[in-house]
Structure formats: structure tokens, C-alpha cells
């Protein structure tokens, strides 16, 4: 992108108005991609700076999927040659030592921790599609543009993601906490 024009202050002003409101989304997505708060900050920052450099090519499409796509691509690029799964998996360590007692009610905070841990251990291809759908609330079409996939693939990945997530939740939470139907 060395041929890209250097942004001027007017571009920056427009960037602030159009893209910066989605910083929380970018950071949230980065948290789930990296599974590490420090790495997520770096990824979000790098992505936003990259977004500013690419902003001249922004044609008024929806800004949030546009930005999330840059986060995703930046993440893919930073991992090239870095060893993909060498990153810490801190959220997954919060798994309880014992299978929880189904009769025992866990506090909402505790349940959230288990849900977060269940999501964190999912393979990346299904984790990202679940985050974009359920947490970022994107449509299939928007997800397809973020991940650069056909819509049919988005659909089949989501089905697979929900199956895997259900299995994780059943292993971590009692029936009364996950609210899933019995198998």
C-alpha cells in the first residue's frame, strides 16, 4: 500500500466519524480472535491504523463489516510465520476441575465465565463465525464479506459451530444453566 495517498486531516476527520465509532466492535472481535487482552489491543490498534491507510478505498459501504474484515485480515497476516497456536489460551484455563453438579446453581457471573471458556476453545473457523453472528449480530451476507466466504459456507459453518458449542456447554454447565434440550 505504499502507493496509497497519505491521509490528510480531512480524511482523518471523516475516518473519526465513520470508522472510529466501531472501535469497540473491532476490539471485541480481536479479543475473540486472539483470546488475549494484550494481543487484542495490539491487533485492534494495528487494524485501525491499517483502516485509515485503506480509507481512501472506502466507498461508503457499511463501515462495521468493512472494519471487521480488516481486523480479520490483519490477524491472518500477523500470524504468518509466527506459529498460529503459540498464543496463550487464558480463557480456556478457567475450565473447572470437576464437572459441575447439575443440581447446583451457578451465579450468572460464573455461568458467563464458563460460556466464555466454551467459546474460547472452539476451533477458530467456527469460533469467528459464531462471534460475528451472535455477538456482532451480523447478517450472513455481512459475515460472508468479513470472512471472504460464500454464503453457503457461512451457513454450514454456523451449523457446525452451534453443534460444537452445544457439546462444550453440555460438558461445562448443568442442564439448568445452559438451558439446552437433552440429547
Amino acid at each position, binding site marked *: 500500500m505504499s502507493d496509497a495517498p497519505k491521509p490528510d486531516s480531512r480524511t482523518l476527520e471523516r475516518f473519526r466519524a465513520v470508522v472510529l465509532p466501531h*472501535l469497540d466492535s473491532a476490539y471485541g472481535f480481536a479479543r475473540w480472535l486472539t483470546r488475549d487482552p494484550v494481543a487484542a*489491543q495490539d491487533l485492534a490498534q494495528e487494524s485501525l491504523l491499517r483502516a485509515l491507510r485503506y480509507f481512501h478505498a472506502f466507498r461508503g459501504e457499511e463501515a462495521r463489516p468493512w472494519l471487521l474484515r480488516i481486523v480479520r485480515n490483519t490477524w491472518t497476516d500477523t500470524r504468518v510465520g509466527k506459529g498460529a497456536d503459540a498464543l496463550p489460551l487464558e480463557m480456556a484455563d478457567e475450565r473447572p476441575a470437576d464437572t459441575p453438579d447439575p443440581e447446583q446453581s451457578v451465579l450468572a457471573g460464573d455461568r458467563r465465565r464458563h460460556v466464555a471458556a466454551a467459546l474460547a476453545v472452539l476451533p477458530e473457523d467456527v469460533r469467528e463465525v459464531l462471534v460475528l453472528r451472535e455477538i456482532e449480530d451480523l447478517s*450472513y451476507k455481512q459475515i460472508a464479506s468479513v470472512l471472504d466466504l460464500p454464503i453457503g459456507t457461512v451457513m454450514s459453518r454456523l451449523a457446525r459451530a452451534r453443534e460444537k458449542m452445544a457439546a462444550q456447554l453440555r460438558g461445562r454447565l448443568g442442564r439448568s444453566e445452559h438451558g439446552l434440550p437433552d440429547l
Partner: protein
Amino acid sequence: MDCPTCEASVDAYVDGELSARESAAFEQALTACPECRERLATARAIGGLLRDLPVERTTDLLRARLERDLRASVDAPEPRARPAARPWARWSAMAASLIVAVGIGWVGGTFTSREGRDSNEAIASYLRVAMAEAPVEVASSDRHTVKPWFAGRIDYSPPVHDLTAEGFPLVGGRLDVVSGRKVSVLVYRRNQHRIVLSLWPAGAGGNVAPSVTQRDGFALAEWRHAGFDMRAVSDISPNEMSSFATAVNRAVDVER
């Protein structure tokens, strides 16, 4: 609609991706298909649990760092057509640092322990370096330049070492005020991250091994070594922070 057909529609239905007509057909097929009703209930329960997760908010530090870098990446000065933008830009810069200060203050309100106040102070000290146009008052990787600079500015002589060989090059030094007392601050670098090390003569004897904690994306280390109380803050990982503290101690020991 047979089961494979309705099974294939469960996700699209729950995600609101079916047309009104397709939805109606699916709902009708559901009445005859208990398996797909279960799939639907599962998908809805998962959605409910995930939407209930706390939203990950951007930290003040990230906003502050981003603000600094966005501004640095802009080429031209403010356009002449909008002279009013200038004071605003300056005000927004000040506002950004105020937001950080307020954020820290608020976190401070939730901690009552001495440790909590100390780490807030440490983070505030880090932010003064991270946000500053000139992060150090004496910029040099040469300890023979940095160490004498403190003479006459504070009433003790801190150990100063360049740790480039360990992956932490010395950036320089500055003064800061911690608990009302002037202390020496050494600034190091780890890749693009800065590490702020504050040190002052120890209030008690003996060495205390570094204890590394993590808060709001910062790694904090506190320890006592060779007669100095040391405190380091950075936005690096806790592991790197441990290596940093070890490197500092080793350099101090070699000199003695």
C-alpha cells in the same frame, strides 16, 4: 417439507435469514419434526448465552495510543479552509488524556487496598510516559549519559543499565512524583512497547522477588532488589514482564 430440508433451514430460520414464506413453511414442518424442534431450541439457547456475555470495551489506554498514532499518521497540517478545527484538535488531545485520567481515577475508586492505589499510581505514571510528546527527559541508551543526569535532580543514585542484549533497550530517563516524593524513572523498550521502571531506595531490608500482576491489559511488577524498591508497568505480557524484572536484577548484581 421432509426432515433434511427443515434441518437445513434451522440456522437460517433462527438467524432471520428466511423469507416470510420460507419461515411459514419451516414452522409448519416443525410441528411434525421433534428433532428439528430440538435443534431450534439449542440454537436459541446458545444465542441467548452468547448475547449475555459482557461486552468487551476498548480500554482507555488503547484509545489513547490510537489517538496518538492516528494523529502521527496524518500528513498535512490542518486545512486552511477550516481554521476552527485547530483549537478543537488541541482540545480533543487534552480531552483524550483527561478521559484516561478519569478512567484511572474511577478504577481507583473501586480499589481500597494500598496495593490497588499503588498500581493505579504506577499505571498513571506509565500513561504520563506513553502519552507524552517527549517520553523521556534524557534520551539515551548510554547509561553513562542517563545515570549522571539524575545527579543533582534527586537525592540518590539509581542503578542504570542498558538491557539491549536481553531485548529491552534503554530509551532514557525522567523524573516522576510517587506518593509525594520525587523518584527516578527509567524507560525501556520492548519492540514497540514502552516499559516504565520507577525505583527508589528501599524502605526495608532484604530482597523481595518480583510479583507480576495483570490489570486492564497492563502488566505490573513490584519487587525489591539490592536496596531499591522497583516498580515496572507496561502493556507487554506478564511473561515478558517477568523476563524484564529478571534482566534488571541480573544487571544490578553483575555491577556489584
